[in-house]
Structures are given as C-alpha cells and as structure tokens.
C-alpha cells in the first residue's frame, strides 16, 4: 500500500485503487481469452471414451490375429512407440505389398473430420472395419474369420462379454479399437499451455515461429485443435505441382468423387506430431520437416521463404506434441488361447 501511496498520491481511496487494479487484471484476462479465441490454433482436449473398452481396443490394436496371415497388427504401421507411425515413406502391408500412401499417425486421429488421406472414410469404426479386410492392408478374408479368431481367445471372450454384454462381434471389435484411438489424444503440449496463458511454456524462437506460421498463411489450412485434419486442400493450390518431378500420379479425392475440383485434393494432415512423423505428404516424398515446409510454402502459398523463418517454424512445431497417454504402454497381461491359430477356419498357418 505504501508503494501505491507513493506512486499514486492522489485523492482516490485505497479501496478504489484496489478495485481499479482488480478490474485491470480482469480486463487483461478477458483480453487474453479473446486473443486466445481469435488464434487459429486451439488447445487439444480429451475425447470422451470408455477407458475399459479403450484398454481392450489397445490389445486388439497390437494383435496380429487381426491380419489374414497373423503377421500384421494395426500397430505394425501405426507404431505406438513411434508416435503412431513407422517413419516409412510408404508402409508394407500384410502380404508384403507397398501401400499406396504414407501412413499417418493414429494419435489425435479421433478429432479428424474424416479418415484417410482422401477422406473416404467418415469415422474410426469404419476405418478399422475397412483396414482389417483390405487385401493390401491386413488381408483378413472376412470379418467372420476375424471374429472367430478373436473369440478363440479366452481373455477377449470374457472382456467383450463383460464390457459389451454380448459375445465378440465385428461391431464391438471395431468399436473397441476406435475407442482406443479416441483415447490417444496428446494433451497439455507446451504450445497449448502457451495458448492458455503460460507465456514461458515455449521459447521466444518458437513464438517467432508461430508468428511466421500465421504470417505465411500456413494457419489457413493448419488450424484448429489438431493444427489441420479438418479440411481438404489441393496439392499445388497456388502453383501446380510438377507431377513428373514428384513422380506422383495420385489424384486424391478425385478418385472418390469424380469431380474435377477434387483432383489432387487431399486431407490437410494434422501438424500436432509433425516433428516425430517424418517423412511427409501423402506420398512420403518430403523427408524432412524443413523440406516439407519449403515445398508447402512454395506450392500452397506461392511465397518465398528464407531458411531462418523455416527454422523458427520448425521450432514452433516442436512445441505442438502433447503428453503421451498412459494407454500406449505395451500390454502386460499375457493372452491365453483356447484354440491354436491354425485350427481356425480360413487362417493360414
């Protein structure tokens, strides 16, 4: 109070001064909130899910029984110890074939507006449903065989009965795995803490990088809680991409919709885990983050960008990953099977 009296030796009463102070703090808090609301990126929040079903889904996610030849699980390409990717330009499917597109991360994927690079799948359940019986991905002959294989495992049989109140079925396998994926939200990143008012959560260089990220217009597409994953965009929006140079004939969404404007249109990927999920783009053609940033600013924004700006943007991108959820730890309880895998119909030994 002495300081206040010295600084403001006016006729205002002390209580009024305190009131003004409180008001000033409230106004600044409101201003910060308003600022945060205007920011193109929003903090990630946990997606509602059933923890027990997610735990069951975690086991299934890593179970090779869901592939036709018992060689591949979801986690083979979406490695949980590598931020949900295998860091390959294109992954290898259950039958040894090279997949058509780069494997995106499963982390935070519950918040995407659609699934797959071309957005042809609306939700995670359908994603699982398609992936398991896809001849190029997991190569399961049919969902009936998948159900039979999973139901042959005592633990699964018991858990499904206990959690779903019904025997193992295609629907509840898909739901459990989807629930697990919905649990994979990496919250409380340094950048989210910064957005929530913690000025010291990220470095000055990262703050500068964020400003450049907005300034160059990256945030026009890479925005929202997932810093992407909520719209489609044409590869080569401002400058047509050199298909020969890119050695790429993938026409993107056009293959699904047949509409001219969907040619070379892909889902804008989330940048939340970009620093951990190289290589980049639908074809995995950008090996480094710097390369990807340079190409994007060139083709999508038609702007020149100096290396120092790229460096700051990379610094900013490093602040985006949140904390790994506990659910990604490897399974601890051993599974027991009441039948051998080879005794199940349609399963190759």
């Amino acid at each position, binding site marked *: 109070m002495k300081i206040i009296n010295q600084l403001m030796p006016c006729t205002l009463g002390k209580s009024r001064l305190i009131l003004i102070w409180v008001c000033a703090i409230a106004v600044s808090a409101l201003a910060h909130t308003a600022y945060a609301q*205007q*920011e*193109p*990126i*929003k903090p990630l929040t946990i997606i509602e899910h059933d923890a027990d079903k997610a735990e069951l889904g975690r086991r299934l996610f890593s179970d090779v029984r869901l592939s036709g030849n018992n060689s591949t699980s979801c986690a083979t390409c979406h490695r949980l110890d590598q931020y949900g990717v295998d860091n390959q330009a294109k992954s290898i499917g259950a039958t040894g074939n090279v997949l058509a597109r780069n494997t995106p991360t499963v982390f935070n994927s519950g918040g995407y*507006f659609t699934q797959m690079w071309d*957005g042809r799948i*609306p939700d995670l359940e359908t994603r699982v449903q398609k992936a398991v019986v896809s001849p190029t991905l997991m190569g399961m002959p049919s969902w009936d065989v998948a159900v039979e294989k999973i139901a042959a495992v005592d633990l699964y049989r018991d858990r499904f009965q206990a959690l779903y109140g019904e025997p193992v079925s295609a629907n509840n396998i898909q739901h459990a795995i989807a629930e697990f994926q919905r649990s994979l939200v990496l919250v409380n990143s340094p950048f989210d803490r910064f957005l929530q008012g913690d000025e010291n959560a990220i470095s000055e260089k990262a703050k500068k990088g964020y400003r450049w990220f907005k300034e160059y*217009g990256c*945030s*026009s*597409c890479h*925005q*929202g*809680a997932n810093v992407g994953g*909520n*719209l*489609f*965009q*044409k590869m080569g*929006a*401002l*400058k047509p991409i050199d298909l020969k140079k890119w050695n790429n004939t993938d026409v993107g969404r056009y293959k699904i*919709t047949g509409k001219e*404007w969907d040619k070379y*249109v892909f889902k804008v990927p989330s940048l939340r885990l970009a620093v951990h999920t190289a290589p980049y783009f639908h074809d995995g053609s950008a090996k480094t983050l710097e390369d990807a940033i340079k190409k994007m600013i060139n083709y999508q*924004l*038609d*702007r020149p960008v100096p290396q120092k700006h790229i460096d700051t943007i990379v610094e900013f991108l490093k602040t985006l990953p949140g904390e790994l959820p506990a659910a990604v730890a490897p399974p601890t309880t051993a599974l027991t099977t009441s039948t051998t895998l080879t005794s199940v119909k349609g399963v190759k030994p």
Partner: protein
Amino acid sequence: MKVMIALIALIVTGGIGAGYIAYQHQQQSSDEIRNEILSAVNNLKQQDSTTNTVILESRYGLRTDYDALAERVRDLRQSTSAFNRNQLAEYAGKNADIQQLLIALQGQLTLKIELIESFKSHNAILRNSIKYAPELGEKLIRQARVKNNAQAVSQLSLVNEALYRWALHGDNKEASVIQENASSLVDLYNAVINGVALIRYANHVGTVVEEQEITQGFIDKILAIDSQSTIAKLESEYLEHYVSVIKASEKNLYFVFLYAILVLIIAVYLGIKLKKSYAELKNRDDYRSQQISVAHRHLNSADANVSILKETVDHMKETLRYLGGISTEAQKPQKDNQKIRTLLATALKRYRLLENNRVLDQADDVIEKSNQNLERVSDLVKDLAVN
C-alpha cells in the same frame, strides 16, 4: 347364479379396462415416438441453421479455424443418419410423401456437406491471397517508385486499392477493376526491381478474384439449398400423418367402447334369462320330487296289498293241500278214518281262519286298490317323462 353374473360383468369390465389401458399405453409410446421424431427434426433444423451461420462466420473471417464447421458437418451427418434410423424411417415406409421428403433432405444435406468441404478449401486459399496480395502490392509500388515508373505505380496502385476496397466491402465493381488490370500486370515485369515478385503478385491477385468467385459461388449454392423448408415440410407432413393416425386410433377406441357396451348388455340379458330358466328348472325339480314321493307311497301301498293277498293264497294252498290229503286217504281201500278226521279238522280250522280274516271277501278290493296305485305310478312316470 348371482356369482356367475357378477363374474361375467367383471370379465367384461376387466376387458374394457384392459383395452383402455392398452390404448393409453399405445398412446403414450406413440407420444414418445412423436417426441423423439420432433426432437430429431428440431435438432436437424437447428444444426442446419447453425451450420449456415458458421459458414458465413468463416467466410468473413470471424472464425479463424474450421473446427466449428467440421463439428457442424459431423453433427449434420449424425443427425441425418439418426433420422434414418429412428421411427421416421418407419413412417416413411408407410407414407410416400414423408419418404419423398426424406430422400430430398438426404440429397440436400449431402450436397451441402460436399459444398461446405469445397468452400473450406477455397476459402483457405482466398484468405491467404487476400492477406498477402496487398502487402506484396505495396512493396512492388515502392519498387516502381524507385524505378520512377509512374505508369506502373498508377496501375499497381489502382489494382491494390481496388483490392483493399474489395476486401473491405466486397463490391463487385472493385472485383471488375482487379480483373481488368490483373492480366496486364505481367507487362510491368521490368518496371519493378523484383520481376518474380510481380509475377507472384499477379498470381495472388488472380487467385483472389478467382477464389472470391468460387467461394461466393459455393456460399450462394449452400444458402440456396432450402433444407430448412424441406425439414419444415417434413415436420408438418409427419405431424399431419401423426394426427391422422391418432384420429383413427380414437375412432377405433370409440368402436371398441360401443362394442363393449353391447357385449355388456347382451351379457346382462343372458344372465337374466339364465336366472329365469334356473328358477323354472328348480320348480320342475320340486314338482318331480313331490310326484316321485307320491308314486313311492302308492307303490308301497300296492306292495302291502299284494303281500296280504300272497299270505291269503298261501293259506288257501295249505287248506287245499289238506283237502287233497283227505281225498287221497278216502280213496285208499283200508281207510284210516282217524287220520281223515284229523285232516278234516285241520282243513276246517284253516278255512275258518280264512273266513275269520275275511281276506277272501276283501281280495277284490285289495287287487282293485293295487291296480289303482300302479295306475297312478304309471301316470306319474308318464308325467315326469313329459315334463
């Protein structure tokens, strides 16, 4: 009997009561379905309307991310599929108008979602170019000034100012100015220091004009989709259908009540009839019991007379046997007179006994009485058979 009538009345009343409860239950579940459908309709109406608002907010930069729009689209998809899953789809199977409206709505919403996705992509490009182009234009104007190229300064300023004004109020006149001058911008390649930047500027200005047209086109198409009106029609069509179903149900209830009352009247009438028949039957039964009792008495009386006659005949037989013995003895060559006398005395004694009893004198009378009694019994039996 009373118990039976009460039972019939109870069953009929119970039946009516159960019918009414069933009707009430049906009415209640029908109300629940109606509420569920109306709630789904209202949800969809609200989501559709909110989606339009969010699109406009995104268009005019009031929203800096597409999460809200993506969320709205997800809600629209979910509501539409919930719409198809709920009872309305069942109604659609029975009502061609509802079915047609549902198909139309599905088509409208699918198109709307497609257009929204395309709008988002183009709007993102537009936002960038509209932000970057004027900034780059200012740099190029400065470069043209450095090079003292007044014509370039003027042309670039014209385009850039039109760009500012157009960005501020979206007047199509400004768009025309930009469009007219954008194509000739490349001619100023040597009029600025950085010719590549000028090409880039021309590209961004062209993008602004093109994307503005495209995004506006998407907005116009999205807003032209009259899904609100289809939803409203669907709601009113459904309500009309619902009211007609309820009216039919009420009419049925009225008939059920009438039928129940009729059944009750018939039951009461039958009950009364049954009661009368029972009383009549009871009277007949009493009469028969009485007649049987009388017949029984007559039969007993006839039986007594027959016994007397039988006894008399036995005496006569005995007497005649003695007389037969006398006759046999009298015909023998060496007659035992003493024995004859004894037999004669005994026969005489028996005859006197018969005479004293005067049974023989009364025999006709006894037989007559027995005949009368038997005739009465015969009449009673005949009467019982008739009744």
